């Protein structure tokens, strides 16, 4: 392994933009495409994912010295599945309407590779505090990404934001953006913009 492992602060900052799970690492595409039709389900998904990610990071970090290398993925999956089931049940009990709206996508957090990649990259190697910072940073990054896509889709698609009417009633509502193809279009466009900004910044750095 590398001699230098990122510190807690570095882990935290990296998750938000430099290594943003959606825009830079292209992880967790399933919820990114499926639940970003409106802000409310997108933010609930971001919250549930944050809970699972941080809990799994803490748990794995605590037992990291006991892990057998060839059984580690099994332990990761077991841990993630447990927290996802808890999140799913809590949503069904206390946020019933949104839980119905999210349908199968809450249980599908289990296969969100964002979480297992953080277990593998960070929490199975570093201490609990670093793992928490990493989880929080990545969760913020994931929420920002889902939020940005959902904002554009909901405002242009339905004329609302968080269900509040934003655009005048005369706005026709671009239905395509609320439909599944809209998710692909929007993700592609925003990825392109993020990439473009990143490249321009790099060029400036090199020029200076």
């Amino acid at each position: 392994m590398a001699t230098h492992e990122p510190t807690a602060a570095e882990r935290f900052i990296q998750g938000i933009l430099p290594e943003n799970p959606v825009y830079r690492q292209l992880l967790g595409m399933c919820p990114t495409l499926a639940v970003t039709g409106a802000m409310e389900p997108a933010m609930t998904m971001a919250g549930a994912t944050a809970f699972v990610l941080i809990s799994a990071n803490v748990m794995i970090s605590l037992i990291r010295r006991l892990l057998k290398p060839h059984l580690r993925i099994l332990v990761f999956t077991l841990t993630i599945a447990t927290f996802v089931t808890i999140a799913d049940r809590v949503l069904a009990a206390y946020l019933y309407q949104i839980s119905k709206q999210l349908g199968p996508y809450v249980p599908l957090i289990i296969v969100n590779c964002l979480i297992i990649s953080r277990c593998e990259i960070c929490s199975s190697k570093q201490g609990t505090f670093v793992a928490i910072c990493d989880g929080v940073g990545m969760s913020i990054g994931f929420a920002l990404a889902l939020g940005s896509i959902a904002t554009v889709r909901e405002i242009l698609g339905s004329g609302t934001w968080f269900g509040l009417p934003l655009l005048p009633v005369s706005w026709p509502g671009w239905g395509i953006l609320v439909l599944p193809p809209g998710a692909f279009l929007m993700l592609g466009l925003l990825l392109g913009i993020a990439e473009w900004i990143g490249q321009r910044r790099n060029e400036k750095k090199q020029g200076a």
Partner: protein
Amino acid sequence: MHAAKEPAMSETPEKQGGHISQAWLVILLAVLYGGALAGVQTTLGPIIEKNKKDETLGKVPQLVKGAAVGETVEIQLAGVDGSLQMVYRVCADDADKTHQGWVLPAGGKGFADRIEVLIGLNADASVITGLYVLDQKETPGLGDYITDQKRFLDQFSGRSADRPLTIAKGDPAGDGNQIRPLTGATISSKSVADIVNSAIANFQEPIRREAATTR
């Protein structure tokens, strides 16, 4: 779990100790997590069940006019085809507890996935008094307007339950049992009408028998 006990191909179990010493962490975690989940389910299970039931009961006054949530009785009925179904006998919250009607849960295939509805019927199950969609995954922006009371569901109220509903092509004819489908969602609209038709065909007689005995 059995896969867990097998060592990776590159390592022999002798070198790493026995199967148990390999897998004890996995087994321990499985037991711990299982226990935790059992606890969560025991605590939250009743709340989730209550949510589902409350959603149904909360719609009762909207489905049958004059009915009160507190005066609803669950009755299990066998349909004409033998299937069992919980129906709700709903009454007004007055001195006589006047019997107001019935709420019949029903479901069937929609365009995308199952559609679950609640059908409100009057006391002798001859008139549809209301319709509500509990659960659906129809196309957003088109088929999911089947949940819209004004656009779609309100037109079911007041229809006769003695004749099957049909989907109108063009403007609904005046004979009373044609439903105007949603633009761009004919299949979703037809699915809802079919679900209502088959549920009524299946449970109108059992409900009427039940109504005669409980009066």
